[in-house]
């Protein structure tokens, strides 16, 4: 067999070159020649790599100094400009961690989940025991509260890269809480991780009993260490800090506990507090987006993502005139609750400068606001408005007449 390989390759190369000529003379680049990898064949068989020609990568948030002065704090942005569909590859999933908790080295055989507090039967589970229980797989986004576009940002990775979406598999927390027997006076839970600082958040019991999951898998494999291996709480639609990584303990309690992480998100204003925990309806165009280049007038398929912490995305609208007029975009994937949803829009660019925007509406009928809408609500000038809580405002991309694409907030 081996002796036949070179011939087969030569044949493929030859036919590809012919096809290129036949298709109208677009020269096929040398890169279509099969190359060789440095990795041994058994390594490539055991765990696949992406093509060496695919270079999409994450980088840390600039303003947050990641890694920080201790070399420890990380907020890492996902390359949304390269995204297709709704699943973020685990290797490119955004990450934000507590001090010192970038990749804790946790042996799953030693890991335990304890459920206690205001329950009739405190319980401890090993990972093996959790995996014996009924599970579900659901697609949910995660988004950091710090995911807000600034005029200095150039690309969608910078403006919106602190969100990603994956398939999560695990046991409904409600199942575990029912097994433990939640007592009547309980109203909150405190969920806590096993990393150095034991990061913890107070979460409403109603949310814990509704759709919260205790997850051990992500995108079809055990959760990656940067995402909370071996166990992560998934609180769909809530901001990222609630999605407790390295989950080791759930305490059922009767009040807001004001943990350090809770403290980091408190606000004197009740309205701002209300906007701080759940993500509002939000969308962004990923192509064409800041830093990309259109090759000239003609047809482009505008592509983007929409999501809402309140449920499914009902519709997405698109404007190519800076918000003067809006047309319906098409949803290109199923719309799952609290999940990224891909939209598309046929667009013929006439070569003139224009501003592209998307806005979405979720199942509650809540429409993603523009910054002008938010300014009106808070009675502040639009150029100085402070978007309270999770920023879900419309992102403008300015397409210049030379085809270059820029942040419309700049």
């Amino acid at each position: 067999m081996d002796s036949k390989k070179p011939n087969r390759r030569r044949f493929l190369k030859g036919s590809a070159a012919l096809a290129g000529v036949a298709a109208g003379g677009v020269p096929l680049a040398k890169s279509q020649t099969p190359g060789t990898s440095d990795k041994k064949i058994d390594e490539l068989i055991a765990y696949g790599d992406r093509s060496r020609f695919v270079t999409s990568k994450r980088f840390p948030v600039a303003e947050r100094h990641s890694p920080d002065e201790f070399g420890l704090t990380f907020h890492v942005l996902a390359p949304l400009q390269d995204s297709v569909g709704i699943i973020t590859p685990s290797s490119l999933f955004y990450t934000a961690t507590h001090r010192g908790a970038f990749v804790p080295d946790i042996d799953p055989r030693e890991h335990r989940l304890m459920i206690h507090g205001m329950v009739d039967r405190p319980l401890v589970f090993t990972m093996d025991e959790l995996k014996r229980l009924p599970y579900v797989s659901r697609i949910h986004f995660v988004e950091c509260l710090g995911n807000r576009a600034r005029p200095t940002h150039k690309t969608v990775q910078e403006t919106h890269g602190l969100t990603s979406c994956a398939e999560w598999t695990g046991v409904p927390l409600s199942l575990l809480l029912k097994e433990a027997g939640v007592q009547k006076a309980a109203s909150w839970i405190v969920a806590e991780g096993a990393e150095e600082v034991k990061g913890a958040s107070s979460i409403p019991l109603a949310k814990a009993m509704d759709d919260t999951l205790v997850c051990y898998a992500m995108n079809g494999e055990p959760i990656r260490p940067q995402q909370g291996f071996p166990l992560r709480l998934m609180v769909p639609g809530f901001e990222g800090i609630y999605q407790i990584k390295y989950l080791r303990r759930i305490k059922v309690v009767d009040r807001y506990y004001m943990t350090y992480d809770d403290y980091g998100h408190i606000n004197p204003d009740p309205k701002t507090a209300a906007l701080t925990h759940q993500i509002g309806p939000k969308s962004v165009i990923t192509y064409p987006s800041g830093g990309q280049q259109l090759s000239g007038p003609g047809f482009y398929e505008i592509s983007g993502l929409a999501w809402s912490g309140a449920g499914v995305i009902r519709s997405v609208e698109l404007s190519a005139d800076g918000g003067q007029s809006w047309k319906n975009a098409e949803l290109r994937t199923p719309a799952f609750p609290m999940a990224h949803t891909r939209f598309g829009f046929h667009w013929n660019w006439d070569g003139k400068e224009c501003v592209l925007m998307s806005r979405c509406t979720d199942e509650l009928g809540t429409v993603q606001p523009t910054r002008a809408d938010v300014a009106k609500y808070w009675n502040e000038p639009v150029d100085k408005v402070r978007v309270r809580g999770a920023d879900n405002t419309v992102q403008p991309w300015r397409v210049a007449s030379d085809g270059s694409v820029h942040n419309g907030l700049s």
Partner: protein
Amino acid sequence: MGFPRLFIVTTVLGICQTAWTQSPTYGIGKSPSAEEIRAWDIAISPTGKELPPGHGTAKEGAALYVRKGCAACHGATGSSGGHAPTLISRHDLQAKPLVPCLAPCVNDSNAMAIHSPFATTIWDYINRGMPIGKEGTLTPNEVYALTAYLLSKNNVIKEDDVLDQQSLPKVKMPNRDGFALPPDWKPGEPRLQGYP
């Protein structure tokens, strides 16, 4: 099912509850012992009910601040570290309604002793998260003392006040009323009625 009878037997005989499987529907999981729960139960309520026995003063805390290496990140005076959050405000500030931040915040009004609504949050975080690289090694007395030191240096308590299980939750924090609780969460409701 044999569960109820087994429950009565184990309860009456005082047999350790780990002797039987706890989860009623699936029979999976174990019951932790009281000691196991106590060892992990480090989240301190604003009521202070989880606080362990112990006590400490600002004077003891000042010595610990040096001995435990706090100054390496937070600065000798607690306000000039440049890397880690400001612990001791340089000014005699009233509580300001600013949003705190968890990333290193080196501005005075974010000093936790001034901004946190509850002294328990400070005790909890020193206990679980400090010192860097040796998290969880401080004794309860040391955590009480360091908490007293930070509160005293920010003029929230007096220098000779003793903090313990009873007194710590009662400390009147300057920002006690300076925050709004998250609203009651219910499925299928928007974040804030009327918000665009």
